């Protein structure tokens, strides 16, 4: 079996959130892959126009937190707060890093659909400690 490691998401977060039910885990993972890309497009458009940026960040953040993408979620939260404070340019500066993390989250969620069965991921394989998510 190939060794899978996660640097952006922690599949255990979603698994635990759905009562450790693997079918529900896969359903929600597929939903993430379906809804997150158009959400990210709306965010990029909002950064260009300056309209609706806080809401775009807020909505995408609601999805990224569910798949355990801590760093991505934190970036979105920072952008949302900056946008609510009227600091659009700070969000533009964060975009390259945000895009890299977002694409990585998609890749890892796709991988978790195939490789994660609820028992194969050890703490050592996940870059993000579970405790940091539970403390939120």
């Amino acid at each position, binding site marked *: 079996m190939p060794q899978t490691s996660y640097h952006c998401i922690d599949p255990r977060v979603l698994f635990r959130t759905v009562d450790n039910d693997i079918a529900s885990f896969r359903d*929600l993972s597929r939903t993430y892959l379906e*809804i997150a890309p158009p959400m990210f497009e709306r965010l990029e458009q909002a950064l260009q126009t300056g309209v609706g940026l806080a809401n775009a960040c807020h909505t995408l953040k609601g999805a990224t937190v569910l798949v355990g993408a801590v760093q991505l979620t934190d970036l979105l939260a920072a952008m949302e707060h900056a946008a609510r404070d009227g600091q659009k340019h700070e969000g533009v500066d964060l975009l390259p890093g945000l895009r890299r993390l977002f694409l990585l989250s998609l890749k890892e969620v796709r991988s978790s659909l195939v490789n994660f069965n609820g028992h194969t991921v050890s703490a050592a394989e996940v870059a993000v400690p579970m405790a940091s998510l539970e403390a939120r």
Partner: protein
Amino acid sequence: MNLSTRYPRVLVAEDMEMSRQLVRLLLTSRGFIVDEAENGLQALELSEHGHYDLIFMDCLMPVMDGYEATRRLREREAATGCQRTPVIAFTGCTLGSDLELCNTAGMDDYLIKPFTPEVLVAAVARWIAMPSAPAPRP
């Protein structure tokens, strides 16, 4: 199925599809019947035509946010003499000012996102009785 069994009905008003799906999965597996709204206006319309034992209301939604929808729900209940439906806010904020907004709008309780299944169930149980049997699949 015992025909006298009454499954609690819950309305989930939340614009993010993944969050609605999550709450639907967690509640239907515990015996609730779940309806969904994508914004506050839809939630108001659904709650006007159907009885709900409990409403989950996201605070920030397009078209009409959860604060406004709850305010209007409370006004309607007062005008018609309908029984008050418990409303639990979904919020991503823990700031006192945000929780005060929930309270002022007429919300009864709140859940901070993301939440665990245990926290969701505990919030429901604070307001309505938990069903004893799973609801039939639609």
